[in-house]
C-alpha cells in the first residue's frame, strides 16, 4: 500500500538554511547538507528546498548546494523558488532535483507548466499555490502570499493540472503559522477537484494535526511543514510511529 509522505521544507538564502533551525547535536544548523542528511536519517520521505535568494550570486550558491545535497542524500528532492523559465528547470534538474515547483512564475506565465511537463514529464512539475479566503472565496496569491491575483484558486489549480502539473502543493495562508491544524476545508475542495497527488501545507502544530489531516481526507498524499520540524516540536520518527499506530500507512 502506498504510504503517506512526510515532507520537511527548508528555506535557503545565499546557500544557508534560514528561518532559524534549532537542533541539538547538529554542528552546523544552517548547512543545507547537514540538515538534509539529518532529515533523511530521521525518515523524511522527501525534501523540499525553497530558494528565497534574490541575487544571481545567491542562485549560483543554491545550485552548488543542491548538487552537494543530491550527491549525499538519496531520497526525492523538490526545488522551488525563483522558477520562471525552462532554463530554471534545467538549472536545478541538472543538479539532481527530481521535481520542480512553480508558483509565481506560473502565475506570470501559465504556459510554463505545459512546456515544462512536455519537456520533463508531468511527474517533474509541481504546482505550488498560496491560497487565502477573500470574502469567502479561495483566491490565489502571488509573490510569497503578498499579492492577491484575484484568480479563484480551485479553477487555477485545475487549470495547472490540466496543463500537466503532476502534483499540487496547497499552502493555506489562512492557517499558515497559526499551528492550529491543516486547512481541511480548503484541502478537501482541492482534493475533490483534481486527481493528482496533493501535498498539504500550512498549519501543522503537532502530531495530531497530521493524523487529523489523513483521517479527514484519505486522498491527501503528503503533509509538509517547516518550523515544527526545524524546532524539534515534532520529531519525524515519533510522528510516523503515531500515524502507524492510528492505522495510517507510513514508511518506517
Amino acid at each position, binding site marked *: *500500500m*502506498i*504510504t503517506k*509522505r512526510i515532507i520537511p521544507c527548508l528555506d535557503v538564502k545565499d546557500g544557508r538554511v534560514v528561518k532559524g533551525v534549532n537542533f541539538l547535536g547538529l554542528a552546523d544548523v544552517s548547512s543545507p547538507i547537514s540538515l538534509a542528511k539529518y532529515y*533523511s536519517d530521521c525518515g523524511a*520521505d522527501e525534501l523540499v528546498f525553497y530558494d528565497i535568494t534574490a541575487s544571481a550570486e545567491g542562485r549560483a550558491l543554491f545550485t552548488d548546494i543542491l*548538487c552537494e545535497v*543530491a*550527491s*549525499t542524500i*538519496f*531520497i*526525492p528532492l523538490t526545488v522551488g523558488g525563483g522558477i520562471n523559465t525552462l532554463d530554471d528547470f534545467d538549472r536545478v*534538474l*541538472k*543538479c*539532481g532535483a*527530481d521535481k520542480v515547483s512553480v508558483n509565481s512564475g506560473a502565475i506570470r506565465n501559465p504556459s510554463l507548466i505545459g512546456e515544462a511537463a512536455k519537456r520533463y*514529464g*508531468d*511527474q517533474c512539475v509541481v504546482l505550488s499555490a498560496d491560497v487565502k479566503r477573500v470574502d469567502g472565496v479561495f483566491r490565489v496569491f502571488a509573490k510569497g502570499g503578498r499579492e492577491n491575483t484575484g484568480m479563484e484558486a480551485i479553477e487555477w489549480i485545475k487549470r495547472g493540472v490540466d496543463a500537466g502539473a*503532476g*502534483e499540487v502543493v496547497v499552502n493555506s495562508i489562512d492557517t499558515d503559522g497559526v499551528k492550529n491544524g491543516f486547512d481541511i476545508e480548503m484541502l478537501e475542495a482541492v482534493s475533490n477537484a483534481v*486527481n*493528482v*497527488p496533493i501535498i498539504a501545507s500550512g498549519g501543522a502544530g503537532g502530531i495530531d494535526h497530521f493524523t487529523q489531516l489523513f483521517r479527514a481526507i484519505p*486522498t491527501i*498524499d*503528503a503533509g509538509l511543514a517547516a518550523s515544527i520540524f526545524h524546532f524539534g516540536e515534532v520529531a519525524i520518527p515519533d510522528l510516523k510511529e503515531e500515524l502507524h499506530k492510528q492505522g495510517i500507512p507510513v*514508511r518506517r
Partner: protein
Amino acid sequence: MIAIVDYGVGNLFSLKSSFVSVGADVVVTNDADVLRKADRIVLPGVGAFGDAAKKLRDSGLFQVVIDEANSGKPLLGICLGMQMLLEKSYEYGEHEGLGLIKGAIRPIGETIDNTLKIPHIGWNALHFPEEKHPLFKNVNEGDHVYFVHSYHGTDCAESTAAITEYGGILTAAVAKDNVMGCQFHPEKSGNVGLTILKTFCEL
C-alpha cells in the same frame, strides 16, 4: 567498472552519485567500447517508451546492450530502463523493447482500482516470491522504495522478482539470471535503494 548508459534521456546525476556513494567505480557513457569493457551495465530511463527506445537505437547502443546481456554481463534496468528489458510496450502505440525478458508493458490503469491516482507516485512496499533473486538478498519483505510510473510489466510472471500493491498487483522488479530491472528508483529509495545498488555491484 560499472557503465551507466547515456542515450540522452533524463538526468543521470543522482544515479551516478548513488553508485559513487556505495563505493562503485562508475562511468556515464554513450561509447559502445566502454560498455563492452564494463563489468556491469545500468540502463536508466525516464519519459515515454517509444521515444526512449528510438533514442537507444539512434545511439547505436540497442544491440550492444543486448549482446552484452547475452554474454552474461550483469545488466540492471531502472524505471523506464527496466521496462525496455521486456519485449514490447503499449504506451501510446506499440513499441519493441530489448526483448531480454518475456512480457509487455501496459498502463497500470488496466490493473488497478480506477479510483486511484495515476501515476503511482510515492513510497510503497516490496513483496518477494519465496525464492528471492540474489539482487534482493540484502533487503527485507515489506521494505519501502520510491516509485514514479504509469505503466508496468505484464505477462512476465516467470521473471517477476518483486511486486507492490496499489489497488492491485504491480510489477516492481523483474529478473532473469544476469538481467535485472527495478520499476522503482533505487537511487531515490534511501538506504534500501543503496543496498540494492551495492548488491548489484557485487553480483
